[in-house]
């Protein structure tokens, strides 16, 4: 929590008139008080219409099975930037950064197929040793007996090295990638926002695009290699992309590979500190790591929501949805749906069917990098357990001011000397 909270949020969540309940307020996530608001919606109004919000009127879909149905029905619920894209905040007109996540078939399919080999499990098997070496290096360099920010020293460090590798970008400049990613995905109204307007953000996106475009052109003139930029520069569906299209797809990889796994790396330490008996169970049974990784990704839910736009009149969970209406699917709520997930607020490392969570989304837009995320997290926890690190969380985490990314900015920890 970032500010002292005097308000009783459970009482508040249940006493507000339903039509004023607006779960899009970034402060709910900044202050880490979101659970009772979504709980009330799941119980009383699972497909909920908010007539007025800073983002205009919108539908909230809060239950697991309803969210899956929206995701599978991509013909009725569009992701296209033509209708506003994938975030509750419409893509700014004329400044879109369109890529396949913000497209419908058939364009979506061509682009996605072109790049999916970069992070499929067969490619990833070759990266395991490299990821392990780096994880070892980072863990061995951590201070003992003093407080440090886990997010900076571990989560950002590891994911930024991974990004540099995916792009084959000079690793000594990896901090640039992080700054760009944070700039492109931030809420411009956040207290710590690196940009304060969509125009400033767009200018920074174009600087990024021009910088990366030089690398793209170099790679286009060399034989095809295994990094994302080379694959794009040589791919049939992607090699003739305009600068704006290149910007879009590179930002997708940048943000997708950065501010998601980073937060599961932090969320795992936080979650296991809140459920110490689960941490103990995991230490005693390292065979549970794969299951714990899925559970951590569910418990953290790094992406809070995705947005779709109804392209025709239809219905979700019995509620009539009109063409053109904004439909927000709240993964953070679906992952707490007690009808599908038992004791959903708890992190349980040996849960039955731990892979059945919605943090990666479903359907044709399902997270492309999910296996890479799981690989990095698995190695991190294998190496933490191998060292028997006792990580103590010494203060409250600081969350991002965002209704899109469930991001932990700071997590003060201490490792016993």
């Amino acid at each position, binding site marked *: 929590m970032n500010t002292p909270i005097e308000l009783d949020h459970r009482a508040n969540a249940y006493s507000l008139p339903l039509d004023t309940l607006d779960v899009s307020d970034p402060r709910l996530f900044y202050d880490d008080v979101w659970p009772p608001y979504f709980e009330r919606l799941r119980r009383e109004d699972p497909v909920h219409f908010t007539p007025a919000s800073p983002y205009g009127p919108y539908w909230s879909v809060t239950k697991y099975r309803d969210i899956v149905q929206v995701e599978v029905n991509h013909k009725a619920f569009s992701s296209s930037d033509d209708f506003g894209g994938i975030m509750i905040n419409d893509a700014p007109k004329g400044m879109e950064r369109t890529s396949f996540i913000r497209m419908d078939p058939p364009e979506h*399919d061509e682009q996605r197929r072109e790049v999916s080999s970069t992070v499929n499990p*067969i490619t990833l098997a070759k990266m395991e040793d490299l990821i392990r070496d780096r994880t070892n290096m980072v863990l061995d360099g951590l201070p003992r007996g003093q407080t440090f920010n886990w997010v900076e020293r571990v989560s950002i460090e590891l994911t930024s090295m991974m990004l540099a590798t995916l792009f084959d970008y000079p690793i000594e400049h990896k901090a640039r990638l992080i700054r760009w990613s944070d700039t492109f995905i931030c809420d411009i109204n956040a207290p710590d926002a690196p940009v304060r307007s969509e125009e400033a953000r767009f200018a920074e996106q174009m600087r990024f695009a021009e910088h990366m475009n030089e690398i793209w052109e170099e790679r286009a003139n060399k034989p095809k290699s295994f990094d994302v930029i080379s694959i794009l520069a040589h791919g049939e569906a992607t090699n003739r992309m305009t600068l704006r299209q290149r910007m879009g797809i590179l930002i997708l990889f940048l943000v997708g590979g950065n501010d998601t796994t980073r937060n599961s790396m932090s969320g795992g330490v936080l979650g296991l500190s809140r459920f110490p008996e689960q941490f103990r169970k995991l230490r005693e049974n390292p065979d549970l790591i794969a299951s714990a990784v899925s559970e951590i990704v569910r418990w953290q839910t790094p992406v809070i929501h995705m947005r779709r736009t109804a392209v025709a009149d239809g219905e979700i969970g019995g509620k009539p949805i009109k063409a053109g209406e904004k439909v927000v699917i709240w993964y953070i709520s679906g992952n707490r749906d007690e009808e599908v997930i038992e004791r959903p607020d708890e992190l349980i490392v040996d849960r039955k069917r731990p892979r059945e969570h919605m943090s990666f989304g479903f359907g044709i837009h399902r997270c492309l990098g999910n296996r890479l995320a799981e690989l990095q997290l698995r190695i991190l926890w294998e190496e933490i357990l191998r060292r028997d690190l006792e990580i103590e969380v010494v203060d409250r985490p600081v969350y991002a001011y965002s209704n899109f990314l469930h991001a932990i900015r700071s997590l003060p920890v201490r490792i016993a000397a």
Partner: protein
Amino acid sequence: MPEVTYIEFNGTAHRVDVPHGSSVMRGAVDNNVPGIDADCGGECACATCHVYVDPAWLDKTGLPEPGSQEASMLSFAAVAEPNSRLSCQIKMTDALAGLIVRMPEGQH
């Protein structure tokens, strides 16, 4: 109950009785056959129960309808082949007794 043989990528075979009406995916998951993840639990909403149907059985299992959700999800799988199916979409019947499916190198 009709029997299904699941062959892992490394060649290990598992013979499992799968109840009528249950899916080939469910038969693997409920019997801890490795190599099928089934992340979406059978909604045809991911592609992590991907299998290759033994060519001799293709007539009976059929292939996904072009343009269907299954075809769409399979087109993003790591190593799809013409005999690829999502095993959550193959429902067990007597006609499928003896079915053989092979696992891909990885589920994506």
